[in-house]
């Protein structure tokens, strides 16, 4: 009896004794729980990567990828694309003179026309792009040089553009709208397409200039400042970018819905390209309601108002006509990539099969006991 009380006391004493050192190991519940988690016995799948086990994966990947690749390749090949370089580097190029003489400081525009022939008719909607090469729209300082709030029509930023726009922030003391280097370098060539009929007359190809920008850009991201419908009033007290011929509210005087910041050509330009060689959507040639092709084969002439100098940085300008499919423009790469990867997988699968048969018998037998 006495012994038991003694022991009880003892245990108390011992416990508090150990805790009196404030040691980190003062654990109350001593016996660990026997749970699968705590004992690290969670049910688990243990894949072992051996030739035998990964073999099927390689074949399956190969068998899936090769058809997809073929499909992609065919789709890409069905896309019709026509590209013409009008930079005017060569002497015989129609725009040689324009290219030679033109600079940002020129006040008069230079016009040149390029003839070309479409061998095949373009059936569905045709997208007309302009393409630039060697134009580093992704340059870090260039990409930053814009003020999204200004472009969103925020009044304060219209008058006080963001510092990021430097050195295209103010001009003669007036804030530049739209400010920044991107806006300043807006692509301002005008491309017009004419079909030359059998009889030799030029017929303008109807193009739409709406719908070329992202819907969200047009309606959410970009907004004209102020409530007034008159844009020239709204942009009062701002200067046009240095390189621009006309003010931002004069970009498309005919259509108020396509003017100012929400001009679609402007919006498209403001979406900076990822790579130094890029194209941007310029116009869309809508499919005709009847069965005649959108662009029939034949001779065409493109009249260019040559405003945009690129030779200084060794750039190139192109006009591209292209139909598109579900996977976008013409690009055989994905198809080829799929076929290649699929084939490699298949080949490696065969290699693994050989390895498996030659060397893997032991593990195989070990894995499938009797």
């Amino acid at each position, binding site marked *: 009896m006495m012994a038991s009380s003694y022991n009880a006391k003892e245990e108390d004493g*011992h416990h508090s004794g150990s805790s009196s050192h404030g040691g980190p190991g003062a654990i109350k519940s001593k016996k660990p729980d026997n749970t699968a988690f705590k004992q690290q016995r969670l049910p688990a799948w243990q894949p072992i990567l051996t030739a035998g086990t990964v073999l099927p994966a390689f074949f399956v990947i190969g068998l899936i990828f090769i058809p997809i690749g073929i499909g992609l390749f065919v789709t890409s090949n069905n896309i019709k694309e026509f590209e013409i370089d009008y930079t005017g580097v060569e002497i015989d190029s129609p725009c040689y003179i324009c290219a030679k003489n033109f600079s940002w400081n020129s006040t008069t525009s230079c016009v040149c026309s390029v003839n070309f022939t479409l061998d095949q008719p373009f059936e569905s909607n045709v997208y007309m792009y302009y393409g630039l090469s060697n134009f580093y729209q992704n340059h870090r300082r260039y990409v930053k040089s814009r003020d999204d709030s200004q472009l969103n029509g925020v009044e304060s930023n219209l008058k006080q553009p963001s510092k990021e726009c430097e050195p295209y922030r103010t001009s003669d003391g007036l804030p530049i709208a739209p400010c920044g280097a991107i806006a300043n*370098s807006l692509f301002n060539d005008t491309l017009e397409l004419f079909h030359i009929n059998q009889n030799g007359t030029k017929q303008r190809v109807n193009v739409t200039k709406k719908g070329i920008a992202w819907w969200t850009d047009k309606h959410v991201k970009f907004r004209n400042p102020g409530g007034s419908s008159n844009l020239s009033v709204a942009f009062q007290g701002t200067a046009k970018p240095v390189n621009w011929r006309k003010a931002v509210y004069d970009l498309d005087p005919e259509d108020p819905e396509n003017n100012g910041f929400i001009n679609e050509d402007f919006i498209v330009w403001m979406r900076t390209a990822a790579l130094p060689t890029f194209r941007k959507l310029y116009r869309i040639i809508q499919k005709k309601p009847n069965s005649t092709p959108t662009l029939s084969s034949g001779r065409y002439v493109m009249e260019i108002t040559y405003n945009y100098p690129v030779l200084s940085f060794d750039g190139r300008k192109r006009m591209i006509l292209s139909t598109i499919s579900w996977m976008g423009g013409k690009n055989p*790469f994905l198809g080829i990539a799929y076929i290649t990867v699929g084939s490699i997988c298949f080949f490696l699968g065969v290699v693994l099969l050989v390895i498996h048969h030659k*060397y893997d018998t032991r593990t195989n037998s070990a894995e499938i006991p009797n």
Partner: protein
Amino acid sequence: MARENEDAGMAEDVSKAKSQRKSKAKETKTRTVHANTLHDFAKGEENPSRRYANNRIKTTKYTVLSFLPKNLFEQFHRLANVYFVFIALLNFVPVVNTFLPELALAPVLFILSVTAIKDIWEDYRRHRSDMEINHMDCLVYSRAEKGYVEKYWKEVRVGDFIRLRCNEILPADVLLLSSSDPDRLCHIETATLDGETNLKQRQVVRSFFDLDCDFDPLKYNSVIECEKPNNDLNRFRGYIIHQSGKKDALYKENLLLRGCTIRNTEEAVGIVIYAGHETKAMLNNNGPRYKRSKLERQMNVDVFWCVIILLVMCLFAALGHGLWMFQYGDKRPVFDVLSPEGTNLSPIMSAIYLFLTMIIVFQVLIPISLFVSIEIVKICQVYFIHQDADLYDEETDSHLQCRALNITEDLGQMQYIFSDKTGTLTENKMVFRRCTVAGVEYSHDANAKRIAMYQEMDSEEEECISHGGTLPRRDSVGSHQSARVLRSHSTKSHRRTGSRAEAKRASILSKHTAFSSPMEKDITPDPQLLDKVNDCSSQLDFMRLHSQPMSQLPSDLSDVFDFFIALTICNTVVVSSPNQPRQKVRMRFELKSPVKTIEDFIKRFTPSRLTSGSNNSSSSSLNRSSNKGGSSMQSCPSAESTLTKLNEEQSSSVMEHAFSPAPPSYDGKAFCTPDEGELRYEAESPDEAALVYAARAYKCSLVGRLPDQVTVELPHLGKLNFELLHTLGFDSTRKRMSVVVRHPLTDQITVYTKGADSVIMELIRPPITGNSKGRRQKKILCRTQNYLNLYAADGLRTLCIAKKVLSKDEYARWLQHHLQAETAIQRREELLFESALRLETNLQLLGATGIEDRLQDGVPETIASLRKAGLQIWVLTGDKQETAVNIAYACKLLDPEEELLTLNADSQEACKLLLEESLHYIQAKFLCSSGDASAKDFHANVSSFEIYPSSPLSSHAASDSVHRLGLVIDGRTLAYALDASLEDTFLTVARSCRSVLCCRSTPLQKSMVVKLVRNKLKVMTLAIGDGANDVSMIQVADVGVGISGQEGMQAVMASDFALPRFRYLQKLLLVHGHWCYSRLANMILYFFYKNAMFVALIFWYQFYCGFSGSAMIDQWYLIFFNLMFSSFPQLISGTLDKDVSAETLQQLPQLYTSGQNSEEYKPYMFWMNMIDAFYQSLVCFFIPYFAYTDSDVDLFTWGTPITTIALLTILLHLGIETKTWTWMNCLSIAFSVALFFTVALCYNASCPTCYPPSNPYWTIQRLLQDPVFYLLCTIAPVAALLPRYFYRACHSTLFPNPVQVGRQLDKLPADTRRNILSLSRVKMGSWLSPRQPSLPVGKPQNCTQKDQRGTEAPAKRAGAESVQQGPAHPPDPHSSSLKELGAKNDPLLSEELQPASTKDPSDPSWVPSTQMDRVQLNLPPSRAPPCVTYVRSSETALSCEQTPPCSRGTTAEAELYTAV
């Protein structure tokens, strides 16, 4: 870094700060303590003790206010944090900035706050525990109340009087002023401080010694001067100044330390000297230790490489940018924007700015989350190790404790284990196993069975583990059942069916008696011997009644009687009774000290005066006086006491008092004789206790011990008082102890000696040839020696018991010398030693005992498997050589087949010669063995004989050179060997031995050995020990492990991991160590890969953006990629991934070598991962590049798929690397992907104008409608991971490493696997890794047995085939049928498969130690010739000269050789 110091020195810091403050106030070297009672009313300034720390402890680091600055300060000690903050701040510089400056701060802030939260939590826990301790109660004297009142600990101040009751814990360091103990002693248990469970005596301050009445604090008016607070537990100096001006010195014996428990003392009063943080306990209490693990060191090298890569990339980009700018010359293109200031940057300036920009952009390469992730993963790993039920010891209710939180992975890389022996390998519980008396062996089968039962109880749970490896000794127990086991009633009560709870209760009950558990205490007597004892004592009783001389007793019976008397009294065991809290059993009849003077001797030994006693309860004052000076042993009996004694002797009748039963009462209470079963024995060494308990089992029980007499209770005879004349204590040179007593029955002066067999046997009186007595003696001697050998072979600690009867004259002669020696001033020790030598001669052998210092459960198995795991195990023990060697054999550290190299040298030169001799010997073996091996092998061997491995890789080759050799070295030789001139040679010798045993080594030597090996061999070392003597070694080793067993806390406090038992080391290292290492190694590699792969994407992009530092990956993704999108899966797999299951890891210890050789994380792997990362990033970059080339894609619409692809690739990469998929892995990966898309969708939809410059409004939404996005996300990860996937598959098929084989084994059904594993004991090694050179098959073994090898090789091959075919056979339900399987193939194999336990120790035909031959190489110089002893088993010895086995093979294989 400095944080570590902060943490470790936390407690000190506080006190340091305080003591500094104090030292400014008063520049003295001492502390003066006045009693607070004098100053109770003088609050504040006047109170002299106010300067000293109060008893409130505060181990927290922060207060609410100081947290932020202090924590930040600490965190910035980590270089990485500074780096990241620097980068974040760089972002505020407009010329170079890349991201939103605020955003760039986010990750750094996140990391800092995670760490801060962790710190807060830890601090809060400390705070809580502080609170708990601060609010414990104690009794403090209050002047106002005129008595003791309960107060909280925190209210105790220096100078307070504290009353302490039994079993209370001391709240502060207290100077003992009064004790209820009549001897003015106070017993404390210091288990929480130094872990020693035996009681320590503390004495009341001398001046308060003679205080008869109760101590009254009000009368106290002395002043105490003592030293400043320090952390030396074993030192306290000071003096107390009484008002009278008298000074009295204070010693450590007067000080009770905080944290100790009062035992065995009803009440004590003391004055507080040190309080709170100034107590010795607190000053000793260091926080968790911070070590840097090997893996982390390796990682830091690679972090450094990452920095280099980063700089190279940045330089490259800067150069590229400069050139890019240069090519445009003066024609400034429209897209090259001027600097914000409008100035035109020169290409050079531009490049310089860009360099800084690139550092910001590429900062991800230095993984910011790596350090935090590693910390989190380690905490989780520690949690899981904590939670492992296998590492929980039910008996002591203790866990494994991880005290160091950040070296878990080091556990997986250990190469050397340094182990203590006693208490670490053994239980430090001595169990009496068998004895031989007068040449007759009593095997104590029933006792063995009982012990076996305890073991069964213990191993009930481990039945899944095959029984092949259990000790052969245990197996033999079952076979030795004798039908007529008599079970005495005393053992019946312990024949419990053995629930562990009961065992636990029992162990708690016995917790406070050192060295006793039911297993040690309850010895089942051997029926034969018990009969004899009964017989003997009844005869003695009869003779006594009939006043016959005792010498008529038959000699065998008298031997038995003497044997047990010797067991009972030849020791220093103290008897206590458990009912009262360690009350002294007061059986004091009279005070008599050992004979001190000749007069005393003459007085005492006047004829017919037997020692007698009378009730002498009034002798308390005498007692006290005798206790003055601390030890009653040394005190001289006063004249008064001698007189009293004489009077009493005269008044008492002879016979009656010799057997007087009733002891005096204590404190006036009725004191009943404690039941003998409840007596507790406290012994200095556990084997003494074991012998006493053994004797008690034969009813020959020690019931009382006083300085001058020993009381023994015997059946029939009752209590016998032996007058103790002298005790010649144990010392390690003599290796024996003796007591000189006067036998109460024969009245002869008898010397009982107990000691090591080697010394006792030489002191035995040579039998007189001719007469029958001499013949009998000779026979006894011969037989006993035989049995001793048997015991030794069994791993028992052997002790010989001998006696000698002295005639009065002899005694007088000896006594004269002895007294001279005792009183000598010079050379006293030597003289006493010589005196003892003179006495201990011409002994008569009584018998011998075999005590088992029971190995802890599973020690041989653990050692075997650790050794298989490639760990070198060295045992460093303070024990004597014989015991150490015995235990080493028992725990399979040494193998009977092994050659034993024993180094005992007496001088530096001798040691040098010895070492060189050994080296030559080993080299000679080498040359022999490599004689017929290929030349290549020869060179390999020779080159591996260099002292230091030239590279970590060659450590493998080094293990190749380990022979089947054991090295035994003693402390003295070790001291020479550790000398700078010899240490290289010593290491070379030691390295080529399979096991090393250092005996008689001091704690310092232990740590020196560890340091030597660690520093010279550049290996990972682990030290394991349980006692205070192991602390230094534990601290020196890379990983220190403390056994939180019997000896308690001191080792634990110094350790990084505390284990309840040695055997847990196996799972800790083999399983948790392996897991932690492989998890962490893989995680770190993955981290580097991940970041490199991600950053490289941006790097490739620089070629397409004019090296302008532009990034196509949105800044948010870029910054949070590491922290959010890709962090969870790696944390999960870093915590949970198991490459091989715990079972397989334990059964195939060879898998551990992967960690030792750092196979999971080698330098080249970093570069392989980097190359893979660059390849993958190329794929992930260029597939989208070509897919979108010359299209109208904008920057972030193109960048987002790349981010997605990168994320998927990185996650799938982790998938390939993940070995075990649980739902948590799947969930975390799914979560990561879902999180990315959710964040992207929200982020892209949230604000059309925010987040300049990227402004990715609606990007992901449009992408999700684009089929190309999905096509890209399918092909790019596949293409990126294809090589790695293929490589993994091929590698594991063509060149599977052991770990992969282990994983394949995991997949097998349980029983098939078990079969294979049981075969693997023999064969698995070679099957596992054909390249591993240390494996037996296919390597020439020795030179002359070549022909035999030729026949063996096919047999082996057959064996190997049978292994491979094993699974193809129907799975065997019983592993035993496997042997049949083997037998079918080849009879030899079945022999191979025989467990090594065929040696039955009880089988008399198997006596290996007698067949051992010793080769002595005697060296000429020095006074005591040192010797090298080569001991080897007989079979090997035959072929040893030509064909020593020199390759490390499995035991079974070696047996095969010997069988052949």
